[in-house]
């Protein structure tokens, strides 16, 4: 989790006192306990937090093999982003959003709320929209990640993405546009599965994406225009 958004995991912001011993912060506390235990079982990490999922889903190649490995250390993993394999260092606490934005400079994916409430960080993982702010980076290893920068690929996803981005310009789909990359990724997933969406289909698919400027009419028109273009094969 990026310190830039420390809404979660920073309990003293709320209470003035950390439920854990604040003389030693959470990370260093756990690190010290793990090392003092001598042998680190993965279960030790799994017990500590929601990172359990991370560990289970991380391919074996990325699991530390030495018995005294630092469970908090950054590891180099390969992520498949917009059709290219990218090697990047990932800490167990990193979400995919941090890696995309802070490590790889793919800032088209935004981080408006960082707690899975607004959809502004939506990316496609195996063509399914996911909020990258809460998607553990390790979990994305071995999966196909597509961001709003994926329009330069040559793939079915990019065809849809391009059609939507063009339509977004024509129909004025965004105002400040801070949420629009996320909106467009949700719309891409919709049109990949449904070439002729009804208004209700659009609303349902887009209901997880907040636009504070309230430009929903523009978003709906953009998706409808892109769908028409794709049906005509003129994306």
């Amino acid at each position, binding site marked *: 989790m990026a310190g830039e958004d420390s809404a979660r995991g920073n309990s003293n912001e*709320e209470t003035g006192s950390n439920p854990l011993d604040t003389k030693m912060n959470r990370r260093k506390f756990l690190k010290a306990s793990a090392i003092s235990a001598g042998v680190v079982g993965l279960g030790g990490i799994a017990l500590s937090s929601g990172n359990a999922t991370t560990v289970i889903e991380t391919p074996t190649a990325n699991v530390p093999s030495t018995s005294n490995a630092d469970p908090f250390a950054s590891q180099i993993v390969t992520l498949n982003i917009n059709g290219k394999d990218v090697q990047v260092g990932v800490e167990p*606490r990193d979400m995919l959003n941090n890696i995309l934005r802070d490590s790889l400079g793919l800032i088209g994916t935004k981080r408006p709320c960082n707690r899975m409430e607004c959809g502004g960080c939506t990316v496609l993982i195996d063509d399914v929209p996911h909020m990258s702010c809460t998607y553990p980076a390790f979990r994305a290893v071995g999966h196909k990640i597509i961001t709003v920068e994926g329009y330069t690929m040559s793939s079915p996803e990019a065809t849809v993405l391009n059609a939507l*981005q063009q339509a977004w310009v024509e129909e004025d789909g965004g105002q400040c546009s801070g949420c629009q990359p996320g909106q467009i990724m949700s719309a891409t997933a919709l049109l990949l599965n449904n070439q002729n969406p009804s208004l209700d289909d659009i609303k349902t698919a887009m209901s997880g994406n907040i636009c*504070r400027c309230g430009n929903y009419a523009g978003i709906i028109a953009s998706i409808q225009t892109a769908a028409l273009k794709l049906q005509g094969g003129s994306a």
Partner: protein
Amino acid sequence: MSSSSTESSGLNNLSPTAKFNLVGNQTVTRRDIYAKITGQRKYTSDILPSDIGQSSMWYAGFLVAPHPHAKVTSIDVSAAQAAGYFALVESDLPVGAMFGSGSRAYPPLVSSEVLYPGQPVAAVAAPTANEVVDALNLIKVEYEQLPYVFTAEEALAAGAPQLWPGGNVPGGGVGENGAVTSGTLNLNLGDVDSALASADVVYEDTFSTSVQQHYEILPRGAVAYWSGGTLTVRASTQWAWLVQVTLANYFGIPLSDVEVSTSLGGYEDGGALGNGLGNKVSGEEYILAAVLAQKIGAPVKFVHTRLTHARTTTNRWPFSASFRLGAMNDGTLVAIDAVCTANVGARGGAQGSDAIGDFYNTYVCPNMRFYSIPVTTDAYSNGSAMRSVGEEQGHFLLESAMDELAHKLNMDPAQFRLKNMRQGPGAADPFSKLPYSTIAQPQALQTVMQAFGWSNLWKGWGVPSSVNGTKRVGVGVCIQNAAKGAPFPPSTSQVQVDPDGTVTVFSGLTDHGAGGNTTLPILAAEALGLTSLANVKFIQSDTQYTTNSSVTAGSQTTHNSHSLLYAVEDLKNQWFPTVANKIGASANNLAFGNNTIYDTTNPSNSISFNDAAALLTSSLKGYGVWNIPFNVAIRSTGARMAQVEVDVETGEVHVLSYTFALGLGRTIFYKGAIHQMMGGSVMGVGSAFYEELLVDPSQNVTPTPGYPTSGSWLNPNFHDYQIPTIMENPDTPNVIPVENIDPTGPYGATGIGENTIIAADVSYINALSNALGGYRFHKTPVRIEDVVAAIQWMQANGTS
């Protein structure tokens, strides 16, 4: 330098029937949208070290107080420092360096007494974003909780905790332009008491609004770095020059040593805010990023988390108004008497009087009296602009009361407004006596009535438009009349033409989503006779590359960019002699045509724009200065009608359709204008039915570790605060720009902005009232429990 007079420049075509290339052109698209939706444009939170020519940077965050009112008994940052992080507390800041202005200026970090839940007490920086959390966890703060007050009523009660020396009602007396700074008489016209005594109908009632948050989609923040003694700050600010002055004063360095830009504003790709809505004018983190960068000797990126953004930044303040209204049986309004109480937060930035100008402007009434009482509380930081300064709240209060007065008169509420609203010609502000520069009434209301089909849909008081099983549909109306915001003149800007024909527009204004990136280039390109924006660049909001064009706020970006026409005029005066010489004409007779410059005495004698540019040996820049005129009242007027459906079984409410006509003077950027009108109307759905920051009012409950304490906000996040989603979007929006040419604006434009949300909520709430037997709602938001209460009232009264 061109004239700074308030007269129109020679290029300002004010003809209502004028034909333009780009102004109002429906095919012009938003200039920066493609760059934004392909990840090529950087918002402040997107800035990476490489964007500012650095190899690395530090990241920073706030530690904020969990209590609404407390003494800070100790702050221990030693563990954070021992771990290699940097921590700041109040004593690390320059002595006397304050944030804000006036008697309630405050240091950006406090170590003595916190006055609201979320007040910053420390800031940290760490070499990675992840470690900011680690650093914050190493700081230990101890508090002694103090009693607190959350509402104006509590704060005014005898024995209430006093937040500031001198009490909870700040200031005193009548300030500039009649603005009240204390519980004071604001305006007294005619004889209100006699008028009420002789009125046929007197209606008394109180209405109130709630604390709301901007929640602009991308949080506020800054990236700061020093190079020698020179400070550069890339901030998500609506006014780079205010930040520049604040920083220069803070560090005691010359203005020339502080460069501030919006995002990467000095570049053509810069200037992205991710919305501002009034919350990005100034910020503690702009200063603290610079302090940390100086201490560390490295660039610092300080972007709010969503939680600290919600809790430390400003809010739309809650407002209540107690009205006594008098009218004659024929519907003539004879008296308005009102006391307005505002909960202005801990720092009291806002005034209780901000909506009163709308109260006395919207309706014509011979007898009016207004008192206002701004009250300080511990509820939140600072009542401030949120898409209008008090006027969004004020219109709910006024238009609820007026609607109910029409009900008491048993008069069609649209006809009541047609009869009593201020309208042209000859409209003037009753307080300042200044004539309006323009007014869209009665056209706006008449247009809406016709387009909406009011006469068919309005079935009378307490009678819904239609009933289908458990679903009832009602219709409602309201009008709006709002001031354009603080102008801070002069506005300056420049237009440059290069020998290759490229035009560059320089403006200190920025674009927080309203479309200024497109509107401003249109204004300049139209004056230059261009038929396309393809060769027009836009450089914005950078203290090094552009000049101060005033704050991007108050719905005045378009209006203030009148200076661009003067810049083109100045460019013309420098350029045309060369062109005249080339084509054998008198410079005085030359004019811009469609992509040409031609001789007005012999139009066939012309030269293409690009060929004329090629005559230049180097780039030529024209300078424009413009002062907003103070001899007229510049106001934005409009009308709305809405159709709202309510399910009396579930209490579920849905805005089915609305019609909204707004006098914007002249439409400049068509797509942007239309979508801003729709967007504001959607945000109004939130204000009407959802948006309200809730606090836990219980006092001094021992906090449970890991959970918010008593006195905390319960919903400082997107999920629980409930911002309208696409599901709440009205299916049938109808927005109608009314072109009531404003001679003070460029091409007659007044502007849009805040006026797109003002009165939106009350139009929906009045319609809901009509659906529910005429039940009057007294507050925003109208939550589902309020709807249920209305349904029960309706059923008990046998009107179902």
